[in-house]
């Protein structure tokens, strides 16, 4: 059995489903290095034609906001509907905004 020391690092996997679209986070996996992480991501996350491009990044390199600060970070936006551009009339020729 592997000890904590022998465990492979965790990688976050991002897959671009079509050219022109964004890479989207789709999961994580363990791999010894970046090349292997890409290869394993291909096996695990693109076997049903999900993607045309893969990014991986070590999970430890992702800095996340603190869930404990959720209230002060995000709640103040609740009552600021004027920040949405919903009060403008769009020309009909503009399909998606």
């Amino acid at each position, binding site marked *: 059995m592997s000890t904590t020391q022998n465990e492979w690092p965790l990688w976050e996997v991002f897959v671009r489903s079509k050219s022109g679209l964004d890479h989207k986070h789709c999961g994580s996996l*363990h791999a010894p290095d970046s090349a*292997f992480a890409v*290869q*394993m991501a291909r*096996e695990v996350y693109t076997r049903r034609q999900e993607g045309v491009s893969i990014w991986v990044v070590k999970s430890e390199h992702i800095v996340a906001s603190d869930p404990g600060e959720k209230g002060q970070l995000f709640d103040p936006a609740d009552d600021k509907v004027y920040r949405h551009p919903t009060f403008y009339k769009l020309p009909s020729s503009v399909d998606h905004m």
Partner: protein
Amino acid sequence: MQLSNTPQQRYLLRIADAALILSQRNSEWCGHGPILEEDLAQANMALDLLGQARALLTQAGLPDGLDEDQLAMQRLEHQFLNPVLFELPHAADGRQPGDFAFTVVRNTLTAVWFTLLWTKLQSSRDAEVAAIAAKAVKESRYHLQHSADWCVRLGDGTADSHARMQAALERIWPYVGELFQADEVDAEAEASGLGPSWAGLRGEWQAQMQAVLAGATLTLPKDRPNAHGGRLGVHSEHLGHLLSQLQYLQRAYPGGTW
């Protein structure tokens, strides 16, 4: 089952059976892989091989009006024409799920071989075969990349992993010669433009293997004389056991579908 056994049919069956039998072998890792990701990888690659086998079996059966299922599920052991290399179990001692080093070594040397073969088959005079090869070569290139990567990691890994890889290489080597033996089926395929003579692939195969093995700090074993005749239907004791699993359902419930 009666087969016309023309050289063309035998040539196609040799390749189809190599893919089918290796697919069945590698799928034995399903649920038993050393890590989750590799478990999926082996299953993915086994399915690629199964797809290649299905396409070629369909082609091989046309002259006799037989379909892929009949050829895969109802032929007898001596009618399978894969080289013995493809049917060997993953572990010499029958240990389950198997010796992963052997899996890696076999997948690497068969992926080099398949890649060379599919590359040449793309210009087969048989348009169907050429189309099958064009699809398959992309798959086998990936199999090669994946397997060669493992080869280097384990060969050039710890003392233990290196020793296991070298032992696997020594175990498989006597079976390699059969891949490149020239015979009338081979010569006929080359002459008619159906596909390359396997014998002619040896030089390039050896050069590519040497490069991979050098990167993996593994030593190329000495060639040893052998008398394996899987391509003539003379198999090791292992194929019968493999077929008894592969064909069980159709033997127990002939024509069964779901």
